[in-house]
Every structure is written in C-alpha cells, then in structure tokens.
C-alpha cells in the first residue's frame, strides 16, 4: 500500500472495523444487500481498470459477470465443488475469456471497441440459452445454487458468513488492484489511454498491456459474478441482459472514472437506487440511470470520488490558508 499517509491508513482501518461490525447491526436481508454491494464493487473496479484507466470502452462487461456466475454455479451444481473453491476458477476462466476477447479488440479503438463489446453484451443471454450447452447451463431455467452454511465455530448466520467471505475477497482484490494501478503497470495503462504513440515510443508494450488489462478486468468482474451468484443462489440467462452491462457502466461513471474508491460509491448507487425507484414505476430505475449518466457527464465527469477529492482539497486549502494568515 504505497502512497498512503498515516491519516489515510488510520481512516482505512476505521472503515474496516466498521465493515466488520456492520453485519451485527442490521437485519439479515440488509446484510445480503450489502454483500451484493461488495460484489458489485469488485466488478466496478474491474471495469474501471479497463475503461477508466486504460481508456478501452466496454459496453459488454455484463457478459464477463455472467461467465463468472455460471462458472461458479456449474462447478457447484454439476461437479459438486465447495463454493469457496469456485471463485478462483471463475476468475481464471474469465481472465482467459477476457484476454482472448481482448486480442482482436486490440485492433479496435474507442468507438469500434464499444461496438464490439455492445454486441457481446447483447448476444450473451442468447448464447447462454443455446441448447448445445443446456445440459450445463440449465437453459432458460438457469441453475439454483444451495446457499453455503457458515462453519459451526463462527456461530454466524448464512448471510453474515457470506458477507465476511465477500469482504475478504474485496480486501484481497482491492489491495492487489491498488498496487497494480499505482505501480509500473498502472502508469503504463494510463499512458496508453492518454498518449498511445508516446507510450509506445517510451517502450511500453501497448498490445500486451492492453490485452492483459482486458484479462485482469474480466477476472475481477468474473469473481464478482461468482460471488454475486452465490449470494443470490440463482443464475439465469435473463439476469445477465445488456442492461447489466449498462448498470456496471453507470456505476463506474457515478463512482468516478479512474478512481479506486469510486467503486464503492458506484456499487452503493447501483444496488440501492433501483430498489428505491422501483416503488415509483418499473421503468423508473432505468430512467434515473439515464438521467444521472447525462447529469454526471455534464457536471461531474470525475464522479463522486472526484467530487470528494475536490471537496477535501478545498477544505484543506482553506484550513491551511487560515493558519498561514
């Protein structure tokens, strides 16, 4: 965790303590919802690596979320694997899928990549329904997963245990992601986004970094999909429609492009706003997503995380200024 001062580390520690206390303070259903927030946060960090840091637009990340979810579900349901063992496999499968999709995508810039991933996102539910793999995927019906029990020694409820399980993955993946994005690779990613030709001239292997970013991004999203599937206990093709990809994109934009902490703001938004808006009309959540997307692009292109950063900087300046005077 390079680049953090003592105050920030203390803040993170407080947050972690709060996160550990949370499941004992709220009802089981809320715990379940917050577990999904954690899963979304991982997916958003993954998409943000690709879109925010590396500048490759993906409108089809719901597809990788789906692949991760299905990998976990099939391994648990058909092969009888324990739930915890399926997560790394889901990540690995998605890494390969993302890397392979990233290879042809290398030749595509901006708009064309958006088109190709758009097609992937739209076509995914149909692929999952196809009868040649129905034996594995359960076709339109999908797969029902058994919710894992907490180990007896913990004395936790199923929801609480799953929450801690997800929290552990969040910690692991965010620390790894932090180090990746703040280090040499992360700088190469940003350089490719901003000045591809200059980056190449400086000796960055553009092709390799781009397709690896695609792979790692898919890995994160796939792990999130697997965690989400275990929490929801169900996978079906139509829960992974194109609108899931839009949801993820919305989360990234709201949290803040090219920001790590933004993933949490975005995840809270995409988990809770639809629930609230659903009470107005079935269509309302999407209308709100659309309006919020445009509003953020006009007024706050750096998202909530950027807004917090600016506000903190202003506050610090004001405080600093007054002591000097």
């Amino acid at each position: 965790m390079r680049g953090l001062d003592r105050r920030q580390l203390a803040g993170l520690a407080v947050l972690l303590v709060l996160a550990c206390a949370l499941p004992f303070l709220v009802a089981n259903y809320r715990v379940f919802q917050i577990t999904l927030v954690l899963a979304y946060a991982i997916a958003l960090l993954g998409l943000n690596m690709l879109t925010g840091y590396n500048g490759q637009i993906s409108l089809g990340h719901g597809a990788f979320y789906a692949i991760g979810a299905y990998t976990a579900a099939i391994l648990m349901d058909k092969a009888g694997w324990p739930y915890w063992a399926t997560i790394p496999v889901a990540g690995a499968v998605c890494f390969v899928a993302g890397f392979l999709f990233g290879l042809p995508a290398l030749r595509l810039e901006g708009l064309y990549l958006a088109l190709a991933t758009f097609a992937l996102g739209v076509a995914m539910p149909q692929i999952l329904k196809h009868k040649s793999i129905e034996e594995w995927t359960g076709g339109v019906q999908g797969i029902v997963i058994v919710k894992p029990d907490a180990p007896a020694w913990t004395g936790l409820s199923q929801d609480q245990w799953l929450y801690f399980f997800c929290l552990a993955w969040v910690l692991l993946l965010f620390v790894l992601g932090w180090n990746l994005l703040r280090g040499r690779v992360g700088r190469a990613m940003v350089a490719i986004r901003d000045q591809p030709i200059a980056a190449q001239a400086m000796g960055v292997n553009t092709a390799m970094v781009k397709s690896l970013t695609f792979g790692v991004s898919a890995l994160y999203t796939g792990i999130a999909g697997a965690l989400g599937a275990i929490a929801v206990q169900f996978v079906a093709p139509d829960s992974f429609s194109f609108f899931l990809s839009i949801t993820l994109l919305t989360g990234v934009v709201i949290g803040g492009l090219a920001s790590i902490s933004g993933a949490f703001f975005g995840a809270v938004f995409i988990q809770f706003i639809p629930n609230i808006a659903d009470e107005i009309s079935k269509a309302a959540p999407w209308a709100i997503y659309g309006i919020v997307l445009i509003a953020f692009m006009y007024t706050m292109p750096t998202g909530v995380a950027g807004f917090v950063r600016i506000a903190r900087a202003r506050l610090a300046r004001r405080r600093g200024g007054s002591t000097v005077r």
Partner: protein
Amino acid sequence: MNQLLHQVLSGLATGGIYASVALALVMIYQATHLVNFAQGEMAMFATYIAWALIQVGVPYWWAFAITVAGAFVLGVAVERIIVRPVENSPILALVIVFIALLVIFNSVAGWIFTYTIKPFPSPFPAEPLFGNRFMSSHEIGSMTITLVVLLLLFAFFRFTPLGLAMRAAAQNPVSSRLVGIRVGWMLALGWGLAAAIGAIAGIMVAPTVFLEPNMMGGILLYAFAGALLGGIDSPGGAVLGGFIVGVLENVVGTYVGSELKLTLALVVIIGVLVVKPSGLFGKVHVVRV
C-alpha cells in the same frame, strides 16, 4: 430450393429495415465520426407515437407522416440540446451520453406505454400481391418504401443545394464555415434526417416483430453489423451491408437454428473489425502520427 429462395426473399425484406437503420447510423457517423447507440430506441419511440396516433383514429398514412415529421424534430432537438454541449468531449463521454439516451428512451416508452407487447397494423393487404408464393405483401410493401426512401435520400444529397451543404459540412467543417454554411445546423439536420429514417424503419418493422420497448435492440445490432460490413463511412455500402446481413440472418436462422441469430451479428461485427475494419466499401482509416 424453394425454401431457400423464400428465406432469401424475406431476408431481403428485413434486410431493407436493417439497411435503413444502418444508413441512419452512417449519416451521423459521416458528419460527426460518432455512432449513435440510441438510434434504435429513438426509432422505437417514434413507432409508439405512430401507434398512439392510430389508436386515437388518425388514418394510417397521416399517422405515418406526422410521426416521421415528429421524429425529425426529435432528432434535431436531441442534437441541439443534449449532444451539442458535449460535442468536443472525449469519446468515452459521448458513448456514455448515447447509452444514457438509449436507456432514457427505452424506459420512458415502457413508462408511458407499458411493457406489454402490442400488435401494429400493416398498411398493406393481407393477401400476397400478384398471387406470388414467396413474399407477403407487407414484405414487398416495406421493401418498396425502404427503396424509395433510399432513392429520395440519394437524390437529396446529390441534387439539392442543402444536400450539398450537408455533405460539405461533414467533409470539411472549417472550409464550409468559411463559405457561409452553418455547420452546426447541418449537423442537427443530419440528426433529424437520421431519426426520420429510423422512424420509417421502425413503423415498417413493427408489424413483424410487434411493438414493445425492446423491439429495436436486435435490429440495432444487425444494423451495426450491416454498416460495418459495408463500411461505416459509405452510405451505399451500409445499405448493401444491411441487405446482406438480413439475408444471412434469415438463411442461418433456418438452417442452423434461430437461437443464435444475435450471435451471428456478434460474429459478423468482430469478423469484419478484425479482418477488414474498413468494411467492403469504406475508406481505409489512416492516422497521422
């Protein structure tokens, strides 16, 4: 053999729809180098307006004309109000705005008109024309209308001063401004025309796919495939690409299975982008370093 012929012909009919939407996409791409992801949803919304007009008793062709004019105004308004302020932003911001438009049109249509599937009337007689066995009269009629629209557009761009001004504004905005063309308004007009073409495509396809907020999702994807196949900066190519994709979709749907129709579009898109990104008739994209 008969079956194949039948599939090819009805593929041409749906291909005409894809060609129209592809052409609408290409028009906006030529002028701004952007792809309007909301094109399909705007067409869907216009089709709902036509449906509502017909419901209250407006004669079919009047409803048709009012809707196309309304779609034109809508397209101009979207360009002036929503797209204009972010015109010079990075491509990511623009894609996000287009996706937002897609979501907004989709959800507003669902909100106002509900998500139940509605039948949409066809203006053409139910019996096949001229006693032919291969194409329904709606297929022939919609194909004719598509072709007429394409011809009118060609004539507009080729023979009218306004069409010339629009082409100039798309090709060289700076010089056009110097000779007195209002480039901003030409772009808005382009958006209006694209929306009007989309509306016609929506009205023509609605009797076959039925009217619902998600009806254009697949069609937009095929239109993308068609536009890329023909070359995204070539209007003629996009039209041809739309027809090819329509025929391909129908033939593959019959002989391989209709569950993979959308996947076919995905394969076409990625295949074209990887093998020949400029498409069949597009200009090769050259970047100056």
